[in-house]
């Protein structure tokens, strides 16, 4: 009997949540349209996958929507510091690529990839400054809460490898996590209020 009551309660809560969220989606104006510019700056922790190391980045991106589902995204990562093994001394990374989204009202799941390059310097050899080609694969979610704001969360896998370290593996793949507040602006008049 008690179990049934618990189940009923859970079902009721789920139904209320569904009504509430679908109500939000139904009432809100759709912000995900061609011409939407989205940008943000945030702090991102990154786990290095080939070594016991954590890097911290100042991360900024600018994304422009060409289509309801397709956008172009440029991203910049500037390493602020790191912990544990401290393989990297400096790292600045920039990528430019494509995002493909699956919008549900003003909520969106998106994935994409972006070729790019890093300028890296390792603590193993400070004279071995290197221009390193990279590729970034990412997936994320975001929710456009207003015509100027969105909340986002994004996971990225970044492949990069230093090649000029003597007898030391230069693998520097990272898993980067970003979460925060994004700014958005619709540049096409026909999709504004």
């Amino acid at each position, binding site marked *: 009997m008690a179990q049934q009551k618990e189940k009923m309660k859970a079902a009721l809560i789920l139904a209320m949540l569904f009504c509430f969220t679908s109500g939000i989606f139904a009432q809100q104006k759709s912000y995900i349209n*061609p*011409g939407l*510019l989205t940008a943000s700056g945030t702090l991102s922790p990154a786990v290095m996958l080939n070594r016991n190391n954590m890097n911290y980045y100042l991360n*900024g991106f*600018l994304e*422009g929507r*060409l*289509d309801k*589902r*397709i956008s*172009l995204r*440029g991203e*910049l990562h500037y390493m602020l510091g790191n912990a544990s093994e401290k393989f990297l001394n400096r790292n600045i990374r*920039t990528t*430019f*690529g*494509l995002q*493909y989204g699956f919008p549900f009202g003003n909520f969106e799941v998106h994935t994409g*990839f*972006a*070729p*790019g*390059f890093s300028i890296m310097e390792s603590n193993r050899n400070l004279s*071995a400054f*290197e*221009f*390193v*080609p*990279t*590729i970034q694969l990412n997936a994320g979610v975001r929710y456009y809460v207003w015509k100027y704001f969105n909340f986002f969360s994004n996971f990225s896998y970044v*492949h990069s*490898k230093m*090649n*000029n*370290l*003597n*007898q*030391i*593996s*230069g693998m520097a793949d990272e898993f980067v996590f970003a979460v925060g507040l994004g700014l958005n602006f619709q*540049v*096409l008049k026909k999709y504004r209020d």
Partner: protein
Amino acid sequence: MRYFLIIFLLFFSLLSSAQGLKLKGNQGGLFSLGVRSTVSVFDHDKFGINGFGYGGQFRLQLANRLNTEWFADYMRGNISGLANRTDYHVGWSVMYYFTDKTAPVVKPYIVAGHCFDKTVLVDNSDRSNRITKNSSAIQAGAGIHFNLSERMDITFLAQYMFHLGQDVHAHIENDMVMLHKKKGTGIEGHLLLNIGINYKIADLWHNKKKK
């Protein structure tokens, strides 16, 4: 900051043409721009991923089934942790499509072309120990466009590139890096895999408004 400004301006220029592709006549004159990543899967006779690169390309289509691609790549590779290799490629390819359709979901093609390249091998323990060669190359292969929209595609391309000219290579002898340049003309090659994105910006030949 400058980087973001460039993207911002690029986005505005793309937005002006983002409303679908209206073709007048055939597909000749379609101009597209893109970026790509390149992996060198094996080098001459050694298997394994030994180069990774970043590059860009533009395409100018000549006819419904014929496109041209003009590219530049920068690639970095490692030689047993003791030396590193840098390859610069600048070249062009002709692409032949098996269909007349402008943007089907899947659009396969075959490709062949020419390339000019520069290779630099550097000893990691002694940067002054380096060797450089300039050569030309021919490449051929096959690829597929996955059209996400009329204007945007993701492209996978596999091509074998034969470098014509002096062969440069590194080998390890008594823990020392030996860099060699063979005299005479030889052929060495590598299989290159590309993944790229492209955006069709304009129809250059049919875009002029009639007065």
